[in-house]
């Protein structure tokens, strides 16, 4: 088994191995429902709930589930939690439930969730699975919020419905339309890759870069 500390289990998924931004899992919801911050938040929380619930159950049942049917069993477990989340959202925040539409049900096939079950929860103790799920779920939530904030702020000039720039602001409608989803995620990835490369360059010449530049 991998030797990671509980701290790593928890923190890993939040940024270094962010499921959306680094592993590009769960892209559909990240693009489809992030046109407002509220939707992103609801989707993030629902996914968080399903992920944690499934991971808990899968890791506690991991000795009982035969390998041959494990995928079916995971999907059954996930589908159960999704159904529960779906009904809960419908009962508690009907408007958001309506806005998210089919995408709550689609959490079932979110590759990120199934991936965590297969790769982690089914092989680890309940405690570690829980930490991992919380980390990954938070990472997902953060990515959703990043997407949602960019798109709502630019696309509507509001944040969580609160106007930011006053009445004269011209919203960039494209950001809340489908192309805006692709562009936002694309741009986030470009930015990340730029940071990543810059850091790699810095590390390649430890402390030497400024000196070199001066010399040149």
């Amino acid at each position, binding site marked *: 088994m991998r030797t990671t500390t509980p701290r790593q289990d928890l923190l890993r998924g939040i940024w270094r191995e962010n499921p959306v931004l680094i592993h590009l899992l769960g892209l559909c919801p990240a693009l489809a429902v992030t046109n407002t911050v509220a939707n992103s938040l609801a989707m993030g929380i629902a996914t968080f709930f399903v992920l944690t619930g499934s991971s808990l159950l899968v890791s506690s049942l991991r000795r009982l589930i035969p390998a041959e049917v494990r995928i079916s069993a995971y999907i059954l477990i996930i589908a159960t939690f999704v159904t529960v989340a779906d009904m809960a959202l419908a*009962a508690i925040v009907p408007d958001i439930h309506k806005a998210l539409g089919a995408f709550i049900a689609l959490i079932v096939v979110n590759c990120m969730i199934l991936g965590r079950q297969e790769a982690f929860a089914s092989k680890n103790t309940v405690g570690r699975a829980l930490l991992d799920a919380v980390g990954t779920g938070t990472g997902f939530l953060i990515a959703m919020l990043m997407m949602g904030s960019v798109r709502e702020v630019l696309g509507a000039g509001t944040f969580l419905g609160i106007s930011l720039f006053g009445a004269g602001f011209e919203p960039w409608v494209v950001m809340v339309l489908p192309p805006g989803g692709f562009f936002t995620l694309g741009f986030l990835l470009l930015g990340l890759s730029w940071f990543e490369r810059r850091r790699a360059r810095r590390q390649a010449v430890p402390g030497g870069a400024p000196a070199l530049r001066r010399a040149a």
Partner: protein
Amino acid sequence: MSAPHAPGQGGAGPPGPARVAPGRLLATLGGAGAAAGALIVFVFTVTAPAIEAHRARRLDEAVTEVLKGPARYDTLYVVDGALRAEPPAGAAAAGSERVFRGHTADGTRIGYAIASQAPGFADVIRVIFGYDPASGQVLGMKVLESKETPGLGDKIEKDTAFTGQFDGAASPLIGVKPGAGKGAPGEVDMITGATISARTVIRIINDALDRLGPALAADSGSAP
């Protein structure tokens, strides 16, 4: 499709965890299924009333809005081109179209609320509108669902100047460019920059009235 076997394994069964008896497979899956089913049914029973209440409230609000505050309303079912008080029997029940007949407190009929839909600019637009067969007037209109462009097409639901025009407009409605109207009773100013969406709303109403007009007239002619 043979997976590469380790020589010592005797070639029996795929490598990996030990084989499990099919009985246990079934038992586990069945058990899990039963547990899942139980959980779902439990949550369903807990949340169902709230969900149902939301649904009813939404419908209630819509009908109330387009019929301008009826005291109560009846649900009627369209069966073979006529309005019935009872849903048709059997499988067709779920799919049958409904209209809502509003009454004032003293029982006079105000008119009917009808929901209908058609493709707009971005996707299907669903609207509900009130209609009084006696006067031939549209009483009000509300968009139930649309994905029209924010800032343009979504004016059909957000722009009260547009939605307000439907109150009391004579049917059939006629869409005109803003300012180009000649003052005819059925004229509705469309929205500059969102002609398609506005025209779709008007067309939905006209088409629905074409389709249901006779049934509504027959029903409103019958005794209260």
